[in-house]
């Protein structure tokens, strides 16, 4: 795969990473954004899309998802490119001072500047505590359904009690040979009609519903073969399974960022508040991921940091050009 070439590679497509595209765009720098989530918006889209936000200047109240949509509209003229659903695993500095950023899918981005706007870290699936779970990842165990057709004619066990566990149970009931849903409680709190549908499918014998139980162990020979379940009375049963899909939502983890040789304190990257640069020249950290005296984890503060970062990054991207500051009100956006 040919590397993607750009001026700035932005890790994290939360509000701060998105706004960094705007500030970079005003200075004629192109951006590529990478996020492990399949959608942009970071915490706003993943944790609280419907919450109103009250402290964005000029918006007495704005819904979190609306703010993200507005940011996407605002950066559209600068034509950023995206790799979504990919985690950045490696950051490599080349001899000429530029960088290669590599993702979990093998995508490589070659850029002069890297901006880490990683927020609280990578959103990763919550995993049940099963000793050998990771051994079976990609060999029957998956934490999201990418291609439902892959489950046609197979014995699938799902675990969880939220909306995605309910939705996929209903969907896979028509595709898989056998579907089992395991849930620790005896009621579901997802959408009431999904819950009703799951109980109905169980009544019709089209799925197996195992309530008040959890997975104790998984076994197989190179590929998943069976799932051991323990119920509330500690009775164990074994189900034959080709696939296990634990669906317990996502949680942020600092992840690979901790291993890139940056000064990290309490899961945050230490920066110079002059330009939000890190101890590695050409690498900046903005938004919730950074730390400095007086840091506030607010969207507003991340936006400010993005503006100062862009001014400094300009000198890396265009070392021979002089930067002259302009107001957007004077020149408009398309003039930049």
């Amino acid at each position, binding site marked *: 795969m040919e590397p993607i070439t750009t001026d700035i590679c932005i890790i994290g497509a939360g509000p701060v990473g998105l706004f960094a595209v705007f500030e970079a765009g005003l200075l004629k720098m192109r951006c590529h954004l990478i996020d492990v989530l399949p959608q942009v918006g970071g915490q706003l889209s993943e944790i609280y899309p419907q919450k109103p936000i009250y402290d964005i200047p000029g918006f007495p109240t704005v819904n979190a998802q609306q703010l993200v949509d507005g940011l996407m509209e605002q950066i559209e003229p600068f034509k950023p490119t995206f790799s979504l659903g990919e985690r950045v695993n490696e950051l490599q500095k080349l001899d000429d001072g530029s960088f290669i950023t590599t993702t979990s899918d093998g995508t490589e981005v070659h850029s002069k500047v890297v901006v880490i706007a990683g927020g609280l870290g990578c959103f990763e699936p919550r995993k049940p505590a099963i000793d050998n779970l990771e051994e079976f990842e990609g060999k029957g165990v998956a934490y999201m359904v990418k291609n439902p057709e892959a489950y046609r004619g197979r014995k699938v066990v799902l675990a969880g009690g939220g909306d995605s566990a309910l939705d996929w149970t209903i969907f896979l009931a028509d595709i898989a040979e056998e579907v089992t849903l395991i849930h*620790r409680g005896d009621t579901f709190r997802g959408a009431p009609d999904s819950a009703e549908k799951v109980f109905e499918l169980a009544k019709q014998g089209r799925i197996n519903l195992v309530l008040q139980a959890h997975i104790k162990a998984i076994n197989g020979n190179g590929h998943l073969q069976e799932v051991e379940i323990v119920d509330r009375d500690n009775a164990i049963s074994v189900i034959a399974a080709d696939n296990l899909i634990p669906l317990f939502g996502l949680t942020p983890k600092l992840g690979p960022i901790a291993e890139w040789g940056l000064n990290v304190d309490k899961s945050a990257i230490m920066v110079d508040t002059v330009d939000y640069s890190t101890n590695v020249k050409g690498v900046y950290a903005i938004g919730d991921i950074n730390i400095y005296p007086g840091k506030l984890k607010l969207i507003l503060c991340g936006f400010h940091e993005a503006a100062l970062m862009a001014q400094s990054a300009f000198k890396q991207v265009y070392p021979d050009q002089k930067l002259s500051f302009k107001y957007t009100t004077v020149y408009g956006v398309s003039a930049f």
Partner: protein
Amino acid sequence: MINLTIEDRDGSRRPVEIPEDISLSLMEVLKATDHHILATCGGMALCATCHVQVVEGPEKYFHATDQELDLLDTLPDAAHDSRLACQLRISEDMDGMVFRILGEE
């Protein structure tokens, strides 16, 4: 004073003393006493990263509210005695209770 005992992920126990007239959630108390608890959403019952288990105490504290149950359903390790620390308001009848921290570090 309200006396609680907090059991950490490694099984170690620490007593915590809270003045009676203070209006805090258990999550805020845990943070203030330097227990490692993520509490990403700051107590809005949106993130489930303030998960605790009621080990000892009055029966009523063993049962999560509907709002908590919505979120606890998204945790792989939630049990019947699981609660969200941010949804537990400190009160006098909690004196002597024992909580175990389960939430992510």
